[in-house]
């Protein structure tokens, strides 16, 4: 019956058609990258970017992996993104608990400050951060990048979570207070478990955002042993030449982990989004 109605309404077809077009547009770059990743440079030059590869040319991917020691870069990215995601969520929760539920004086202004900090372009932050990290001896260390991104991501997280927690059902908290629960107990025992879906979404976003960061890691991770995946991909862009097939191979290697992570946590993500919608 449901299906009947679906087919009768022309509006639904239009939506479906629009979604299909959108999906094709979104997937097109991935298809191009995948096609070219498996082409030999000569095939690319004679056939152009849109031709189909004649065989399964894996040399580009293998050569790139060896050239930049990709396994190490993956581990660096994983470590940095993972630590940042967890630390930024923890920091956001602590901040938001004070601002959203604790009703700190002047919290509106604090939130505005966080919002402004969020809109600052990273280029403006580079020099101050460079001098600070040099002063404390953290220049060219993963810890510098972890600290910087924990703060940057937590600024957004605080802003978002504070407004979510501002709507937190007061009754539950008052009941807990009457039962004699301490503030700490209320945070870890009540607030965190109930807002878990939102926190998971934040965690996933922080991970993917940090994973994709290019500019600050490029500035702060000088030695090749510390570099992350996006910085390693930059090695292929020469002064005048680009190696299209190897760039495609590296791009493919670079996005696979982020896509895999997304697919694994996709259910959490949709659940988190719908929980928010029902509220």
């Amino acid at each position: 019956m449901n299906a009947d109605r679906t087919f009768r309404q022309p509006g639904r077809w239009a939506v479906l058609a629009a979604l299909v077009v959108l999906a094709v547009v979104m997937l097109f770059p991935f298809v191009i990258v995948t096609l070219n990743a498996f082409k030999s440079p000569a095939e690319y030059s004679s056939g152009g970017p849109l031709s189909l590869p004649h065989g399964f040319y894996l040399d580009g991917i293998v050569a790139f992996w060896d050239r930049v020691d990709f396994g190490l870069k993956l581990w660096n990215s994983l470590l940095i993104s993972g630590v940042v995601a967890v630390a930024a969520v923890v920091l956001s929760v602590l901040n938001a608990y004070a601002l959203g539920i604790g009703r700190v004086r002047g919290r509106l202004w604090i939130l505005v400050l966080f919002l402004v900090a969020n809109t600052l372009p990273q280029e403006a932050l580079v020099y101050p951060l460079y001098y600070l990290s040099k002063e404390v001896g953290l220049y060219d260390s993963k810890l510098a990048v972890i600290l910087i991104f924990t703060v940057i991501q937590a600024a957004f997280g605080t802003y978002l979570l504070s407004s979510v927690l501002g709507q937190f059902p007061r009754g539950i908290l008052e009941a807990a207070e009457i039962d004699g629960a301490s503030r700490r107990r209320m945070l870890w025992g009540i607030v965190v478990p109930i807002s878990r879906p939102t926190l998971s979404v934040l965690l996933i976003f922080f991970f993917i955002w940090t994973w994709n960061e290019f500019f600050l890691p490029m500035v702060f991770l000088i030695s090749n042993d510390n570099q992350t995946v996006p910085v390693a991909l930059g090695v292929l862009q020469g002064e005048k030449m680009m190696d299209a097939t190897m760039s495609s191979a590296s791009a493919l290697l670079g996005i696979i982990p982020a896509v895999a992570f997304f697919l694994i946590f996709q259910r959490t993500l949709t659940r988190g989004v719908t929980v928010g919608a029902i509220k």
Partner: protein
Amino acid sequence: MAALAAAALALSACGGSSGDSDSGSGGSAEGKTLTLWHYETGNSAMGTAWAQAMKDFEASHPGVKVKFEEKGFEQIQKTAGMVLNSDEAPDIMEYNKGNATAGLLSKQGLLTDLTEEATKRGWDKLLSPSLQTTAKYDERGIMGSGKWFGVPNYGEYVMVYYNKDMFDKAGVKVPTTFDEFTAALDAFAKKGTTPIAMAGAEYPAQQLFYLLALNKANRAWIDSFELYKGKVDFHGPEFTYAAQTFSDWVKKGYVSKDSAGMKAEDMGVAFIGGKFPIMVSGSWWFGRLQEEIKDFTWGSFLWPGQFAPGSSGNLWVVPEKSKNKDLAYDFIDITMKKEIQNLLGNSGGVPVAADPTAITDAQNKELIENFNRLSTQDGLAFYPDWPAPGYYDVLVAGIQELINGSKKPEEVLDEIAQPYNDNLADIGN
């Protein structure tokens, strides 16, 4: 949470300790490491030659290890100033020649003065005067005179690549004069083939424009334009001829009207795909053409005229904070040796101090002999975007208008004169 805190502590601990040990080991005498950065691909001519140079260096310096790190071009471009000002600076690195790059760093005191080494080790004898232009910078950071801050290992120049099969089929001979060259272009255009592969959105268009201007120019004009040694009249015969001729060539179909939005990569792929008989571009294409052109025979010849865009390649520089300056000088010296230079030439690069008889491949030989000819006739004219910061984009925009025909040649000249003169005022000339 506890695990996380522990992880963070562990990280901070190793961050601190590795910093300490770095600064500690730099001073000690034994077990030295030469930290070296460059951004050439491993299989390119420079990558091949320098890999051999590292081996030779380790052989002649027992107990010293070379720690090589391949960097991205963009990373070095954007972060060199910061890296060289910190303790993480490498002992020796490849860096871009030019006022805005090596010149700027030399002015900031981040590079070591190499003048003494250059004379002592004879690098000044090996490099021709026009190659030395990019190695020396004055106290304002402007190239051409002053102290040595870098040493180039290779050269580059713009030439004419041609598709021999298409030339034969059309009955066109390799031109030796400019008139023969235009006659060849005309012959292709009459047959309905666009002769020149072009890319208006990137450097190729401005290099062709500059080549045309150079056909009316002399060394004094080039020194005025590039090194601020005199006034340049943008409505003088040189640029007027270039703008007018470029615009005519588009109208006559020597250069496609659709090329305004093309990138250099598109141009190269089109030439490799056999769609155009001629590509006017730099020696940086050589290795790729050699590797990827399988379906036709090709060759190269010098642009008909005394001058062509070209210069030394990028430089070896020694950061002021380098911990092993003497080792760095030794390494540069090895890269200038005949064996390494010959290897560079045999791998498809343009060596600056090779023995021409040691180059075996015919195409490589042609490339190097043409460069030597250009260099000895004092024909390296640098690049049109060098004189002012951001001038590259000014030229791209101006010449795109020539290709589109949206502005008259005189208007385009006004447009490109303005930023040039503004820059002159900025540096106080």
